[in-house]
C-alpha cells in the first residue's frame, strides 16, 4: 500500500505501471484492478478556469490518507492500493488524483476504490484555489457528495 504527494505533474499511467511491477507479492493474485483518475477541468460553476493552487497540511495529509487506506483494507480484501495526489500549481488537463486498487475479484476493486475516493474527498486536508480566466482568485467552498446524483 502506498500514499504519495507530488508537487510536480505526474503521469498516472506510469505510476500504475511502476507500482504494479514493483509489487511482486501480488503477481498472479489479482484478477481486478480499479483505477480512478481525477483531472483538472478548464471550467467550473460556469466560469473559465486558468489554473489552480492546491494547498495541503503536510504530515496530516499523509496520515489521513494512510488511515483511509487502512479503513478500506478492513472492509475489503485488498491485495494492494496506491493513492497519489498532486499539490501546488496545477493547469487544466493535468491529473490531480490517482486511486488504484488491486483485488482478486472486481466487486471489491470497484467498491474499495469508490470508498477511497469519497473518503479522500471528505477527510484529506487539501484545499483548492481557482484562478479564473479573468484572473480573479477564489477558494472552493466544499466538496460535493459523490454518491449524490
Amino acid at each position, binding site marked *: 500500500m502506498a500514499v504519495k504527494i507530488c508537487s510536480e505533474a505526474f503521469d498516472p499511467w506510469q505510476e500504475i505501471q511502476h507500482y504494479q511491477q514493483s509489487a511482486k507479492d501480488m503477481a498472479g493474485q489479482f484478477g481486478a484492478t480499479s483505477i480512478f483518475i481525477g483531472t483538472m477541468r478548464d471550467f467550473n460553476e460556469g466560469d473559465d478556469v486558468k489554473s489552480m493552487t492546491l494547498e495541503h497540511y503536510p504530515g496530516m495529509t499523509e496520515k489521513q490518507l494512510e488511515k483511509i487506506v487502512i479503513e478500506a483494507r478492513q472492509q475489503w480484501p485488498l491485495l494492494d492500493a496506491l493513492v497519489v495526489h498532486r499539490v501546488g500549481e496545477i493547469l487544466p488537463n493535468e491529473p490531480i488524483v490517482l486511486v488504484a486498487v488491486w483485488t482478486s475479484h472486481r466487486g471489491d476493486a470497484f467498491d474499495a476504490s469508490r470508498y477511497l475516493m469519497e473518503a479522500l474527498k471528505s*477527510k484529506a486536508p*487539501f484545499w483548492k484555489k481557482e484562478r479564473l480566466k479573468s484572473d480573479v482568485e477564489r477558494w472552493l467552498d*466544499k466538496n460535493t457528495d459523490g454518491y449524490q446524483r
Partner: protein
Amino acid sequence: MSMSIKVRYFASLKETVGRSEDDLAFVGLATVSDVWSCANAGQPLPDHILAAVNMEYVDRNSAVEDGDIVAFFPPVTGG
C-alpha cells in the same frame, strides 16, 4: 503549570485571520474552542471550521494538552 500550544491556520482561513501560526500559553484546562477564542480576540469558533489536534480530527470540545499542535481549517476540497 502552564501549557504551550501551537496553533496553525490553513487555506482561506489563513487569509481571513491574516497569519499562519500562533504560539499560546494556557494555565489550567482548555478545549479546542478555547484555543481558538484565545488566539482570536475572544471570538467563538465559526461553525463551519474544522479542527485537528496533532494531525487527527477532533471535536471542538475536546481538551488540549501541553505541546499540542491545534490546526483550524475550512472544509477540505481535494481530489
